[in-house]
């Protein structure tokens, strides 16, 4: 067998191998020049002018369809994102991250996306992790791939954040009956069928908890993939605090009672 022959990744319908790779080696996104046109990456954007261009550049190297949903940013985020986004959608008024994700998802589904990915705009996520997650969904190994920062030793999760996130994990283990290790990770990949079935109605940050509930009830196959979360000064300032955690809990519980 010619080792230089282009290698077809089994069941990986969204990738188009362009250069040859050694078939003896496992598929590694770093070594293969791939550009996925069937996975639509939804990036909810809110006041991230400082980092959004870098985030989108990284995504566009690997994904042909990057949908940026600006959620009423008050800074220059839209101007910074416009040259690098495939599609730019704008909420006229701020409706929250959950609403932005659902807007991007609805748009991508209407345009025929085979898979939908969620990717945060603050630069915490790694595109290579997203590629690995997409590959699992594209291969049919699962319907939903969720990022798990606690399985990655490189993710230096601050102690306070770790406690907050682990509390959320425990909460969902009891309330939703689903055993996951990281329930508030913004890096997710859904098959088309999964994205159609899981509609986010929690507009603000409680959408992550709502999604876990919906996933638990859906019977869809879920897999957690180790991902690296970058904790730098910028992301630490932007990240959720305990007060935010309590607000999310309040909105989540109210939503469960009233909706």
């Amino acid at each position, binding site marked *: 067998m010619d080792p230089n022959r282009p290698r077809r990744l089994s069941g990986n319908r969204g990738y188009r191998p362009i250069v040859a790779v050694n078939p003896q080696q496992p598929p590694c996104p770093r070594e293969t020049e791939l550009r996925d046109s069937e996975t639509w990456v939804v990036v909810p954007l809110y006041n991230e002018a400082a980092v959004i261009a870098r985030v989108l*550049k990284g995504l566009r190297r690997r994904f042909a369809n990057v949908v940026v949903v600006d959620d009423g940013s008050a800074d220059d985020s839209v101007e910074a994102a416009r040259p690098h986004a495939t599609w*730019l959608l704008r*909420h006229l008024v701020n409706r929250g991250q959950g609403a932005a994700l659902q807007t991007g998802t609805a748009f991508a589904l209407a345009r025929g996306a085979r898979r939908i990915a969620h990717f945060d705009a603050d630069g915490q996520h790694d595109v290579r992790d997203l590629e690995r997650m997409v590959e699992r969904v594209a291969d049919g190994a699962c319907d939903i791939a969720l990022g798990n920062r606690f399985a990655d030793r490189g993710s230096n999760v601050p102690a306070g954040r770790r406690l907050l996130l682990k509390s959320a994990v425990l909460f969902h283990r009891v309330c939703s009956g689903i055993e996951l290790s990281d329930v508030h990770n913004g890096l997710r990949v859904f098959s088309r069928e999964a994205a159609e079935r899981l509609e986010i109605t929690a507009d603000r940050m409680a959408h992550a908890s709502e999604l876990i509930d919906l996933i638990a009830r859906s019977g869809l196959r879920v897999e957690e993939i180790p991902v690296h979360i970058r904790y730098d000064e910028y992301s630490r300032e932007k990240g959720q605090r305990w007060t935010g955690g309590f607000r999310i809990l309040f909105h989540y519980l109210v939503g469960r009672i009233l909706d």
Partner: protein
Amino acid sequence: MTPFQWILVSSFAALAALATVAVVAGRLGRVAGLCWVAAFVVGGLAAIEPDRVTTVANALGIHRGADLLLYLLVLAVFWGFLLVYVRLRRVRRELTVLVRHVAILEAEQGGSDPTRTDASTAESPSHH
């Protein structure tokens, strides 16, 4: 009756009349309308004969009729807050649907992908 009792009774009567008109006009459901009218009638009676309220309060284990009215008022206020909150959530959700609709209608294509310098730069997004 004292002048204040007249004011209270007149107010309750007017409210009961408004609720009745709302039911007749179809702006308020029959059950809800009946509840409102009953509440206003009870309020009017309590204004006319406050001693009866004390009797009812004593029967419920509350010392004063005024305390019973206070407790009922607190309950009514909380119930009102809940109704307003539920309605506010519904309006917010409708606003989100509207904002989403406009965002999708006015979706704009981004730049020409400056990160690419090879042949795939010319690739357009897949429209299915």
